[in-house]
């Protein structure tokens, strides 16, 4: 039985050795292997194994290790292509979208306390623009702006790092830093992207943000693009904040090897969606205790709160140097555009290269930088600045006193002294009137907006949100922005009109 197998093996070996000898240069290789054998078969096997591995590796096809990469066959691709239907470029509008489109007021001419409407031609009292100190119509600022326009032209021709920085920008940064009391400031040309850029410039994966869940959309997007771990605490609830900080401390103390992570508390001075003020003194206390840094978004409190308009730090008598980054806006109270970040020298200089909106956006026009500088100078002169602030606070108080006198129809979520007033229907009134969905609530609020526009000559607006992207969607509301230049009588009349309209709207449904 063995003989045929042995004979066959013998034959194949002889045949293969004849083939190998026929290859030119094979005797060199065979001689080399014979010499290198040196009575150590194990080593030779290892070396040959390594050579075979090298050859196999060289001949392997490349592939990607991607769990989400789906390979489709040709047939599947053809099927998918055949059944694809293009969607229309413009989706058909839903009812509420059509309503919003129709009912949005368009201003014909320039902005101001009494702008003229395109649809009706009437002048309405403007309670919708964030013109808190009335700088939009300030004649001195207008003159300065026209003069700047003649000197500098309109645009600034580039990003701040690439020929776009003018002396007026540097002056504005100095003015802001001097007014606020911090070491330095950096300006961005768009308010929304300021806070997102600042958060992304200092935080990345692995860092921890503890943020208030009433924060506005810009802060939410900023924390999202920074890719850090975000923990939310209940709106203005300091006990909840302490609980979150304590839980983070506990978690990180149990892991053996803790890398040095950056930890920040992010909150707003005056909340855009609620109108209430953050308790900065308690936050600073917690920050010192748990060793966090604080980013304070003062977009709606810079130039508004405090005796001289310096913001939340002035209200609570805290040195602004203790807050690591103060973000503010020139687009709200100062009638300019854009935002700023004020802090220490290192904080500001780091953003010159890492602030995405600073590096990759055009700088603001010279005209608007000068407007903001002038606005700050007016705030700094006590006679004019303090008077404007006092007027604004008095107007806000007047309006607020009227609307809080109807708690069955209006729920005011703003603090005393805030020029932003959010007016919402109380929940029990809504359920009594049979309104259950958000859309119905929005329709009802829109009725109020339309009615006061026609009957009482007021321009007010609902607060609008990107609903499918907000993490903590606030309830629908009417947002009133009080201006210092409105007459007290007008504000009082407006408040009475809004209150009457609210009461009528909610009781009509019962």
């Amino acid at each position: 039985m063995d003989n045929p197998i042995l004979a066959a093996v013998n034959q194949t070996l002889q045949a293969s050795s004849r083939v190998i000898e026929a290859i030119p240069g094979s005797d060199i290789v065979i001689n080399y292997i014979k010499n290198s054998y040196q009575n150590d078969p194990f080593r030779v096997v290892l070396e040959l194994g390594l050579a075979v591995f090298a050859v196999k590796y060289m001949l392997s096809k490349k592939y990607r290790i991607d769990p989400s990469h789906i390979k489709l066959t040709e047939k599947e691709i053809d099927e998918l292509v055949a059944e694809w239907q293009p969607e229309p470029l413009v989706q058909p509008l839903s009812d509420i979208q059509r309503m919003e489109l129709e009912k949005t007021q368009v201003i014909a001419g320039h902005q101001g306390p009494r702008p003229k409407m395109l649809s009706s031609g009437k002048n309405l009292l403007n309670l919708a623009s964030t013109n808190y100190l009335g700088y939009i119509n300030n004649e001195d600022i207008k003159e300065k702006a026209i003069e700047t326009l003649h000197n500098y032209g309109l645009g600034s021709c580039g990003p701040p790092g690439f020929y776009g920085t003018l002396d007026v920008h540097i002056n504005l940064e100095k003015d802001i830093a001097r007014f606020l009391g911090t070491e330095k400031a950096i300006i961005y040309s768009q308010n929304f992207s300021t806070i997102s850029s600042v958060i992304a410039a200092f935080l990345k994966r692995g860092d921890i943000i503890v943020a208030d869940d009433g924060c506005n959309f810009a802060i939410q997007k900023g924390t999202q693009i920074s890719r850090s771990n975000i923990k939310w605490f209940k709106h203005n609830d300091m006990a909840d904040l302490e609980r979150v900080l304590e839980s983070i401390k506990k978690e990180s103390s149990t892991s053996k090897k803790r890398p040095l992570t950056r930890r920040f508390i992010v909150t707003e001075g005056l909340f855009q969606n609620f109108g209430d003020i953050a308790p900065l003194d308690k936050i600073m206390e917690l920050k010192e205790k748990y060793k966090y840094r604080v980013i304070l978004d003062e977009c709606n409190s810079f130039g508004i709160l405090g005796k001289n308009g310096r913001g939340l730090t002035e209200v609570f008598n805290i040195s602004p140097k203790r807050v690591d980054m103060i973000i503010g806006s020139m687009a709200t109270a100062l009638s300019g555009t854009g935002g700023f970040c004020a802090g220490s020298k290192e904080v500001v200089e780091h953003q010159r290269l890492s602030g995405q909106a600073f590096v990759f956006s055009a700088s603001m026009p010279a005209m608007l930088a000068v407007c903001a500088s002038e606005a700050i100078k007016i705030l700094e002169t006590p006679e004019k600045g303090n008077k404007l602030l006092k007027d604004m606070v008095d107007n806000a108080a007047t309006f607020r006193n009227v609307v809080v006198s109807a708690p069955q129809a209006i729920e005011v979520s703003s603090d005393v002294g805030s020029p932003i007033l959010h007016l919402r229907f109380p929940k029990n009134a809504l359920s009594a009137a049979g309104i259950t969905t958000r859309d119905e609530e929005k329709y009802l609020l829109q009725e109020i907006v339309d009615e006061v526009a026609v009957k009482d000559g007021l321009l007010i607006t609902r607060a609008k949100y990107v609903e499918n992207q907000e993490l903590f969607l606030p309830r629908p509301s009417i947002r009133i922005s009080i201006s210092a230049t409105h007459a007290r009588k007008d504000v009082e009349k407006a408040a009475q009109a809004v209150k009457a309209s609210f009461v009528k709207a909610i009781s009509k449904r019962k």
Partner: protein
Amino acid sequence: MTKLASVYKTDYVQSLDQHSQTNLNSSWVNAKGAWMTNIILIFFLKVMFGIIPGITPELSWTLTTLTYNIGSYIMFHAVTGVPFEFTQGAYDGITLWEQIDGGVQFTATRKYLTTVPIVLFLLSTHYTHYAPFAFFVNLVATVINLIAKLPAMHQVRLFDINQKVEGSNE
């Protein structure tokens, strides 16, 4: 408790961030100039070891292989992340080897970088006349280097070295 081998997990968002821009930390290894520099460096190492008096040619070959394998291991497999910040830490726990070509296995660069230690090993065993101790030392260094380059070891961390720290990166 430390596991023998655990995967360094990156999620979908992290891979999106990685592919949003070219990774300048790892794109230079694809350049043919870098390949040539690799060979020149080995040559330079051998010459340097040969110049030192008192080192036999066999020892210098062994030292070259050892130095090259240890050096390239540290560079490609021990150090993680990128030295500059550009994608919010998308490459934070990823070694240079894992960053090459965005994680695609068996690309030209990876084949080249796997072949070089093998060729160096075969050369050095030849020139040390197959002395057992030198062979053993060279083999261990080369095999460790090669195991780290296997596709099966992509983003695998042994004994929790360079693994993500729990609690801070959730």
